[in-house]
């Protein structure tokens, strides 16, 4: 367990779980270089569990594939233990499988491993501020899935769980995000106030989050259909 920075003025407690040391250090540097972050970085799930219990982090940055197993179980547990903790998944490619798994684990988004330090910090702060960022990839995945299940009437190839069906307004918002528009642009196009878009996004996340082990993605990861 490396404790890289400890600032008296720390406001945000951040847990980093990444087995590759250079990347772990890079991530930790990106956060701890700002004085408002307290970072605990670990390289295995076992360490992560201990750190989580000791630290009670506000934000977890976690790789999904770790030497002692995949992180989904741990992230679910963490979410249940600390519902207010935010999660960002760290990924090399940001591909569909990773995004699905991240959503399943209750993450608010993902970070690319080679992201520039400023981006990493900005994204983390965004999440911690409750800004509900949603990337075009996530939006597209949800939209495509919802559209397919509408046209076929059933979740033939079910990979995404929704606790409630999405409203048409939420679908509109998702379309906008998937096409790369900013929240302000979307609000303008849909004729809603700028504050309404983030609240729609929060609602969507709520519907996406299925914190249990019977979710389709969880099963797909466990059975190897989705390989992380």
């Amino acid at each position, binding site marked *: 367990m490396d404790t890289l920075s400890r600032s008296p003025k720390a406001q945000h407690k951040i847990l980093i779980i990444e087995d590759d040391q250079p990347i772990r250090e890079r991530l930790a540097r990106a956060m701890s270089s700002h004085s408002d972050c307290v970072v605990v970085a670990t390289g295995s799930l076992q360490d992560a569990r201990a750190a989580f219990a000791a630290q009670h982090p506000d934000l977890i940055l976690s790789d999904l594939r770790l030497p002692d197993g995949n992180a989904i179980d741990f992230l679910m547990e963490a979410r249940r233990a600390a519902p207010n903790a935010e999660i960002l998944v760290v990924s090399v490619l940001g591909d569909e499988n990773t995004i699905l798994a991240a959503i399943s684990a209750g993450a608010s988004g993902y970070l690319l491993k080679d992201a520039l330090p400023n981006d990493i910090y900005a994204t983390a702060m965004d999440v911690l501020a409750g800004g509900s960022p949603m990337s075009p990839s996530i939006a597209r995945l949800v939209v*495509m899935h919802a559209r397919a299940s509408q046209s076929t009437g059933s979740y033939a190839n079910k990979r995404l769980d929704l606790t409630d069906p999405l409203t048409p307004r939420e679908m509109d918002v998702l379309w906008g995000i998937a096409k790369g528009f900013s929240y302000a642009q979307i609000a303008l196009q849909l004729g809603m106030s700028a504050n309404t878009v983030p609240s729609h996004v929060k609602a969507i996340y709520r519907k996406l989050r299925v914190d249990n082990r019977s979710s389709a993605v969880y099963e797909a990861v466990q059975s190897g259909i989705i390989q992380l």
Partner: protein
Amino acid sequence: MINHVEKIKSLWRAGSPIAAAVAFSWAFSLLLSGQSANFRGLQALIAMSCESGPSANAENRDAASELRCQTDLNLPTPSPYQTGHMVRDGQDLALLIPVFRDYLVVTVNGVTVGQARLNQWRMPARLATMPTIISLPRQTLKPGINRLEIEVRGLAGREPSLGRTYLGPEADALAQFHRLWFIGEILPTLILGGQAALALMFFTIWNRRRQEAALGWFSLVLALDTFRGSAVIPALGAESASVSYWSLLVPFSSAAYVMFARALVGLPNTKRSLIVWIAPAFLSLAAILAAPSTATGVLMPLGVIVIGANLVWASIVLVIGWRRQVPETRLLLFCTLLFAGLVLHDVLLSLRVIEGQMAVARPGLLVVLVAMITLMIKRFTGAMTELDRTAEILRTRTTEIEARLTQADEQLRAQREAAILAQERARLMRDLHDGLGGEMVAVLALAERDTGKGPDIAYHARAALSDMRLIIASLEDYGGDLAMALGAWKERAEPQMVAAGLKLHWELNDLGTRFQFGPTQILDILRILQEALANVIHHADATIITVGACLADGELALSFTDNGKGFRHQVSRGKGLTNMHSRVANLGGRLDIDAANHGTSIVLRLPV
């Protein structure tokens, strides 16, 4: 279903012998009852003396002759009603006359007690017989010798004749009369109904299936016979008192029967087969033109000869059919001959060559009908069997073809999958080679030099990673929607722009869903954008990038604009420009590059 048909088939395989037996026993019993002299309780008046002479009736000059028969009845004394083997107590005596022609008057001791006419029953055929019963009232009889006289007159041109006459108690005579009446009148009427129904049925079948010519002809036979025998016809007024014109239909009917036999056997219907109609036509014409006496006396026997000849002709045709093994001709031949025999019986009866009680040809027509019905049912069951077999064959073939199609389908699918796989593999290899490969080689080369090339290595590694992400992004499912692919690219590219101090303006119009882009095209488009972005980051000194997409003039226009120092100062990276152009060529679009001092505008136009 098939079991049922099998049962019916096996039942009707024995159908011909059964039908033949029925027909034979019917004809035989008719002949028997026609010839039977055994009238229980009645006594034949054998000792009757007859003489023929010129007609006493001056009004009817055509009546050639008259037959007077007489006999003495010896009734016992004192009362004929109390004793005697012949007469039972309290009963009247009655005469039963089964066969006579055409008009008779009975007198006892000079008193006329009754008369009867053959044609009063509207029997159109002169070959037909009709029994008559005449009561002898007790007032006219006296004990001892009674003279019984019977005067018989023929219609115009016909010899009068009287068959055997019977005397007995009225009740017994009536019983025998009813029997003869049933066979002579009721049965032919029933057969008439059957004929009419069958005629209609066969006509309907023939009308729908003209290839069944035999059925058409047989329907004509039945129709002619039905008209001729129809009890309605005399009421139409065409029947003269002395000439039975409707009987002229019978030669036609027999001619039609010949045609039926020919059609059944499969002989061709040529102009020569019209011969069959000549004799009936001649007879009809002659009968209409000739005097009633000639019509009845000469043409009627001629008509009978024509009928007989036609029956023989039909029989010969059926023999030919038998030789050719046409099914069921044997049964029909048998029944035709039986019927001819019955007709012969009636002719002999009418000529008084034989003595009998009634004519049997009309009730005997049932024989031919039995044969025809059997034939029909056999054809029907045959057709059903054929249908079953055809259905079975079709089912088998369908199964075979289905199996073959499924196999072909699977082969096709396997081929298609293999082709797609090969195509994808080729694409992926080309994509990796184009982008990733080159960058990795550059990284390697820089790393080997190991002289503070850190930033350069980072540059190429980042480019390699970004290209790999583009490849992966191109493989994802956008549902053919380019806007979403552009959104995905923006997500990847924006951090690079931010790092380079660039601000992105994202101005996508609604592109609709008319474009359906495949992974190859999407990758090409994204790489063009990526290339343009790389140019701007490294060479343009710009601060703002505007990416726009819109539909205009049937084209999709994708624009990438910066506010840098203009393209002419960026020519150093010629390879990037070449790559861009080759990708535009792949897409079948064109690239407009407008480089000015205040920035560069690159517009990719794709045809819709």
